[in-house]
């Protein structure tokens, strides 16, 4: 694997990403909303449970990891579909 090719793919998705409000909100807005929602819920439960935060740390960590895994598989799937729709897979497979 050559760095130039990795850079090419990063460039390709960067160009696409910066034009698409949908993709930007998918990548930043919704994960931030998730974290805010669960963070505030967590802090509420922490107050209610009298300062015992272990369970809440577990929940928040779980959510963080879940977002990372989910975003990863989502991006791979959507980008693969995107390449299929664009009929661009052969261009990439010839070089990757």
């Amino acid at each position, binding site marked *: 694997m050559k760095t*130039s*090719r990795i850079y090419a*793919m990063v460039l*390709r998705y960067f*160009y696409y990403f910066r034009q698409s409000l949908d993709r930007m909100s998918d990548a930043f807005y919704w994960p931030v909303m998730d974290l805010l929602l669960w963070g505030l819920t967590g802090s509420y439960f922490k107050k209610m449970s009298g300062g015992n935060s272990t369970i809440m740390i577990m929940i928040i960590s779980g959510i963080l990891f879940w977002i990372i895994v989910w975003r990863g598989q989502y991006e791979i799937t959507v980008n693969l579909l995107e390449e299929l729709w664009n009929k661009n897979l*052969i*261009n990439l497979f*010839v*070089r990757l």
Partner: protein
Amino acid sequence: MDILGVKNLTKKFQQFTAVDNISFNLREGEILGFLGPNGAGKTTTIQMLLGVLIPTSGEVNYFSKNFQNHREEILEQVNFSSTYTNLPWNLTVKENLNFMSCLYNIKNRKERINRIANIFRLNKLLNQQVEQLSSGQVTRVNLAKAFINFPKVLLLDEPTASLDPEIASYIRSFLKEQRENFQVSIIFTSHNMSEIEELCDRVIFINQGKIIADDRPQNLAKSIEICHIELNVADGLKRTIEICENSQTHYELSGRNIIIDVKEKEIPEFLRNLMSKGVYYDQISIEKPDLEDYFLQVAKKK
């Protein structure tokens, strides 16, 4: 010197054999036409030559090196353009060429893109998204992408489809120039027979996965003996038809115009025969067989 050598290449999809034990070579600076009806196996062969499909059996060698063992090194000097692939439609032409030049590890990307844009007359289109372009313009962008690394071997699958005659002619001249100046070897598929005749040094005709002819385009055309004689008969149309029917010659009638299929060497005798029967015609044209006739003959056999 052989740039590409294909030996006993076969591709099977379960029971269906798309490419059946074909062997051919491509010499340095040669333009090789790859012809055949739809579904003949041309695109499958090209995809195997690009390493996108793995052959069921057989061997591909580029620059005397085995393709499977030196894939990466070889593909740096090979490029392609196909009607079956597109560039991302939501990126601009410049963005596409930029990311493609990164894929091919080109050093002076800006300079290369400007040069390619000049060659393919894309300067005014560089900042337009591919989806906004006409199909002819997209074809030019695809060709620009194919030349981005100035390859030694080019695989072009119907590269001039959707181009207007002026641009198509310009592209053909450009391909010839590349061949003459840089000894680029090209495999070229097209359904435009006159284009193949004009451009290709040699033609491989493939049908049902098998090579059925490998020769110069002029020689393939010569293998068809039948010429078409078109006559506008002023007097003696019935007699002309009688002559055709008696000699079991195929003809097509349209008003006083008749097109008769006659073997090339029998034309003088046929015309003498018409004269002796008092047939008068005020227009005559003799159409010699060309590559299209060869193609049609093979397609009919199929």
